[in-house]
Protein backbone atom coordinates (compact mmCIF):
# COMPACT_ATOMS: atom_id res chain seq x y z
CA UNK A 1 0.00 0.00 0.00
CA UNK A 2 1.27 3.44 -0.92
CA UNK A 3 2.16 5.58 2.07
CA UNK A 4 3.50 9.07 2.76
CA UNK A 5 4.53 9.89 6.34
CA UNK A 6 5.44 13.38 7.48
CA UNK A 7 7.27 14.40 10.62
CA UNK A 8 7.02 16.17 12.90
CA UNK A 9 3.24 16.57 13.11
CA UNK A 10 3.73 20.09 14.44
CA UNK A 11 6.74 22.38 14.58
CA UNK A 12 7.08 25.64 16.44
CA UNK A 13 9.92 27.96 15.49
CA UNK A 14 11.06 31.40 16.44
CA UNK A 15 11.34 33.87 13.63
CA UNK A 16 14.74 33.36 11.99
CA UNK A 17 15.20 29.84 13.39
CA UNK A 18 15.88 27.53 10.42
CA UNK A 19 14.65 23.93 10.39
CA UNK A 20 13.54 21.04 8.17
CA UNK A 21 10.34 19.08 7.64
CA UNK A 22 10.64 15.40 6.76
CA UNK A 23 8.60 13.28 4.37
CA UNK A 24 9.12 9.52 4.05
CA UNK A 25 7.39 7.84 1.16
CA UNK A 26 6.63 4.41 -0.17
CA UNK A 27 4.74 4.97 -3.42
CA UNK A 28 4.73 2.38 -6.16
CA UNK A 29 5.29 3.91 -9.57
CA UNK A 30 6.11 7.35 -8.16
CA UNK A 31 6.31 9.92 -10.94
CA UNK A 32 6.59 13.06 -8.86
CA UNK A 33 6.84 14.18 -5.23
CA UNK A 34 4.88 17.35 -4.54
CA UNK A 35 4.96 19.90 -1.74
CA UNK A 36 1.96 22.11 -1.02
CA UNK A 37 1.27 24.80 1.52
CA UNK A 38 -2.20 24.99 3.05
CA UNK A 39 -3.52 27.87 5.13
CA UNK A 40 -6.47 27.20 7.50
CA UNK A 41 -9.75 26.84 5.63
CA UNK A 42 -8.10 27.26 2.22
CA UNK A 43 -7.11 24.94 -0.60
CA UNK A 44 -3.54 23.65 -0.92
CA UNK A 45 -1.16 25.96 -2.75
CA UNK A 46 1.39 24.29 -5.01
CA UNK A 47 5.04 24.83 -4.07
CA UNK A 48 7.31 22.28 -5.76
CA UNK A 49 7.51 19.13 -7.82
CA UNK A 50 10.54 16.86 -7.47
CA UNK A 51 11.04 14.11 -10.01
CA UNK A 52 14.26 12.28 -9.25
CA UNK A 53 16.63 11.58 -6.38
CA UNK A 54 19.15 14.35 -5.91
CA UNK A 55 16.90 17.04 -7.28
CA UNK A 56 16.54 20.31 -5.37
CA UNK A 57 14.12 23.21 -5.87
CA UNK A 58 14.06 26.59 -4.13
CA UNK A 59 11.49 29.31 -3.64
CA UNK A 60 12.21 32.26 -1.36
CA UNK A 61 12.98 30.78 2.08
CA UNK A 62 12.02 27.23 1.11
CA UNK A 63 14.16 24.51 -0.41
CA UNK A 64 12.90 21.02 -1.20
CA UNK A 65 15.17 18.03 -1.72
CA UNK A 66 14.52 14.43 -2.71
CA UNK A 67 16.20 11.09 -2.05
CA UNK A 68 14.98 7.64 -3.03
CA UNK A 69 13.01 7.28 0.20
CA UNK A 70 12.62 10.76 1.65
CA UNK A 71 12.02 14.39 0.88
CA UNK A 72 12.94 17.36 3.01
CA UNK A 73 11.54 20.86 3.07
CA UNK A 74 14.15 23.20 4.49
CA UNK A 75 12.98 26.55 5.81
CA UNK A 76 15.68 29.18 6.17
CA UNK A 77 15.16 32.13 8.50
CA UNK A 78 11.37 31.69 8.61
CA UNK A 79 8.94 34.54 9.12
CA UNK A 80 5.51 34.45 10.81
CA UNK A 81 3.86 34.49 7.37
CA UNK A 82 5.42 31.08 6.69
CA UNK A 83 3.07 29.62 9.31
CA UNK A 84 0.86 27.03 7.57
CA UNK A 85 0.40 23.31 7.10
CA UNK A 86 2.87 21.82 4.64
CA UNK A 87 1.71 18.77 2.71
CA UNK A 88 3.94 16.19 1.08
CA UNK A 89 2.20 14.29 -1.71
CA UNK A 90 3.23 11.36 -3.87
CA UNK A 91 1.94 11.36 -7.44
CA UNK A 92 1.55 8.43 -9.81
CA UNK A 93 -0.30 7.98 -13.07
CA UNK A 94 -3.85 9.15 -13.84
CA UNK A 95 -3.98 11.80 -11.17
CA UNK A 96 -3.57 9.46 -8.22
CA UNK A 97 -2.13 11.32 -5.25
CA UNK A 98 -1.08 9.92 -1.89
CA UNK A 99 -1.19 12.63 0.77
CA UNK A 100 0.84 12.87 3.93
CA UNK A 101 -0.93 14.08 7.06
CA UNK A 102 0.95 17.36 6.94
CA UNK A 103 3.24 19.28 9.27
CA UNK A 104 1.71 22.26 11.03
CA UNK A 105 4.35 24.97 11.13
CA UNK A 106 4.01 27.90 13.51
CA UNK A 107 6.58 30.68 13.40
CA UNK A 108 6.53 33.05 16.36
CA UNK A 109 7.73 36.65 16.01
Amino acid at each position, binding site marked *: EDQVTQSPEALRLQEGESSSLNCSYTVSGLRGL*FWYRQDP*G*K*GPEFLFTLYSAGEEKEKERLKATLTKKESFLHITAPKPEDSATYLCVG*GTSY*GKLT*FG*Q*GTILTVHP
Partner: protein
Amino acid sequence: SAVISQKPSRDICQRGTSLTIQCQVDSQVTMMFWYRQQPGQSLTLIATANQGSEATYESGFVIDKFPISRPNLTFSTLTVSNMSPEDSSIYLCSVEDPGYPADTQYFGPGTRLTVL
Protein backbone atom coordinates in the same frame (compact mmCIF):
# COMPACT_ATOMS: atom_id res chain seq x y z
CA SER B 1 -1.16 27.49 -13.63
CA ALA B 2 -4.96 27.46 -13.91
CA VAL B 3 -7.07 29.82 -11.82
CA ILE B 4 -9.83 27.92 -10.04
CA SER B 5 -12.85 29.35 -8.26
CA GLN B 6 -15.47 27.64 -6.16
CA LYS B 7 -18.95 28.67 -5.08
CA PRO B 8 -20.08 28.95 -2.40
CA SER B 9 -16.99 29.57 -0.28
CA ARG B 10 -18.86 28.39 2.78
CA ASP B 11 -22.35 27.35 3.82
CA ILE B 12 -24.28 26.17 6.84
CA CYS B 13 -26.99 23.64 6.01
CA GLN B 14 -29.64 21.65 7.80
CA ARG B 15 -29.45 17.88 7.91
CA GLY B 16 -31.43 16.13 5.18
CA THR B 17 -30.91 18.90 2.63
CA SER B 18 -28.57 18.99 -0.38
CA LEU B 19 -25.91 21.46 -1.48
CA THR B 20 -24.40 21.89 -4.93
CA ILE B 21 -20.83 23.18 -5.13
CA GLN B 22 -19.57 24.77 -8.32
CA CYS B 23 -16.02 24.70 -9.64
CA GLN B 24 -14.94 27.00 -12.47
CA VAL B 25 -11.54 26.98 -14.21
CA ASP B 26 -10.16 29.74 -16.40
CA SER B 27 -8.83 27.31 -19.02
CA GLN B 28 -9.95 24.06 -20.58
CA VAL B 29 -8.85 21.00 -18.68
CA THR B 30 -9.42 17.32 -19.28
CA MET B 31 -9.49 15.98 -15.76
CA MET B 32 -11.09 17.53 -12.71
CA PHE B 33 -11.09 16.02 -9.25
CA TRP B 34 -13.22 16.43 -6.16
CA TYR B 35 -11.77 15.97 -2.68
CA ARG B 36 -13.07 16.08 0.86
CA GLN B 37 -11.02 17.28 3.82
CA GLN B 38 -12.56 16.45 7.16
CA PRO B 39 -11.53 18.51 10.20
CA GLY B 40 -7.90 17.88 11.13
CA GLN B 41 -7.45 15.38 8.31
CA SER B 42 -5.69 15.34 5.00
CA LEU B 43 -7.45 15.27 1.64
CA THR B 44 -9.46 12.27 0.44
CA LEU B 45 -10.35 11.86 -3.23
CA ILE B 46 -14.09 11.55 -3.83
CA ALA B 47 -14.17 11.18 -7.61
CA THR B 48 -12.54 12.01 -10.92
CA ALA B 49 -14.65 13.88 -13.46
CA ASN B 50 -13.85 13.82 -17.17
CA GLN B 51 -15.93 15.81 -19.60
CA GLY B 52 -18.31 13.66 -21.58
CA SER B 53 -18.17 10.61 -19.36
CA GLU B 54 -19.48 9.42 -16.03
CA ALA B 55 -17.45 10.37 -12.98
CA THR B 56 -15.30 7.67 -11.45
CA TYR B 57 -15.82 7.31 -7.70
CA GLU B 58 -13.35 6.13 -5.11
CA SER B 59 -14.08 3.37 -2.66
CA GLY B 60 -16.49 4.58 0.01
CA PHE B 61 -18.12 7.23 -2.16
CA VAL B 62 -21.26 6.65 -4.23
CA ILE B 63 -23.03 8.58 -6.95
CA ASP B 64 -26.33 8.78 -5.06
CA LYS B 65 -24.64 10.65 -2.24
CA PHE B 66 -22.20 12.75 -4.31
CA PRO B 67 -23.58 13.24 -7.83
CA ILE B 68 -21.18 15.07 -10.12
CA SER B 69 -21.74 16.92 -13.36
CA ARG B 70 -19.09 17.87 -15.92
CA PRO B 71 -20.91 19.69 -18.73
CA ASN B 72 -17.83 21.21 -20.37
CA LEU B 73 -14.06 21.52 -20.09
CA THR B 74 -14.09 24.47 -17.64
CA PHE B 75 -16.86 23.63 -15.19
CA SER B 76 -18.00 20.93 -12.77
CA THR B 77 -20.43 20.59 -9.89
CA LEU B 78 -20.49 18.31 -6.86
CA THR B 79 -23.72 17.81 -4.95
CA VAL B 80 -23.70 16.62 -1.36
CA SER B 81 -27.07 14.93 -0.93
CA ASN B 82 -29.19 14.19 2.12
CA MET B 83 -26.58 15.76 4.36
CA SER B 84 -25.74 14.74 7.90
CA PRO B 85 -23.35 16.37 10.39
CA GLU B 86 -20.69 13.83 9.30
CA ASP B 87 -20.61 15.59 5.93
CA SER B 88 -19.21 18.73 7.55
CA SER B 89 -15.92 19.19 5.73
CA ILE B 90 -14.03 21.32 3.28
CA TYR B 91 -14.77 20.26 -0.29
CA LEU B 92 -12.11 21.01 -2.88
CA CYS B 93 -11.90 20.70 -6.61
CA SER B 94 -8.63 20.39 -8.46
CA VAL B 95 -7.43 20.30 -12.03
CA GLU B 96 -4.49 18.56 -13.58
CA ASP B 97 -1.81 20.40 -15.50
CA PRO B 98 -0.22 17.86 -17.82
CA GLY B 99 3.52 17.54 -17.45
CA TYR B 100 6.30 15.05 -17.83
CA PRO B 101 7.10 12.86 -16.04
CA ALA B 102 4.32 13.89 -13.64
CA ASP B 103 1.13 15.92 -13.92
CA THR B 104 0.63 18.62 -11.30
CA GLN B 105 -2.70 19.19 -9.57
CA TYR B 106 -3.81 22.68 -8.65
CA PHE B 107 -6.54 23.14 -6.07
CA GLY B 108 -9.42 25.52 -5.73
CA PRO B 109 -9.97 27.62 -2.60
CA GLY B 110 -12.42 25.12 -1.12
CA THR B 111 -16.00 25.17 0.13
CA ARG B 112 -16.39 24.94 3.89
CA LEU B 113 -19.61 23.06 4.67
CA THR B 114 -21.17 22.86 8.11
CA VAL B 115 -24.19 20.60 8.59
CA LEU B 116 -26.35 21.15 11.66
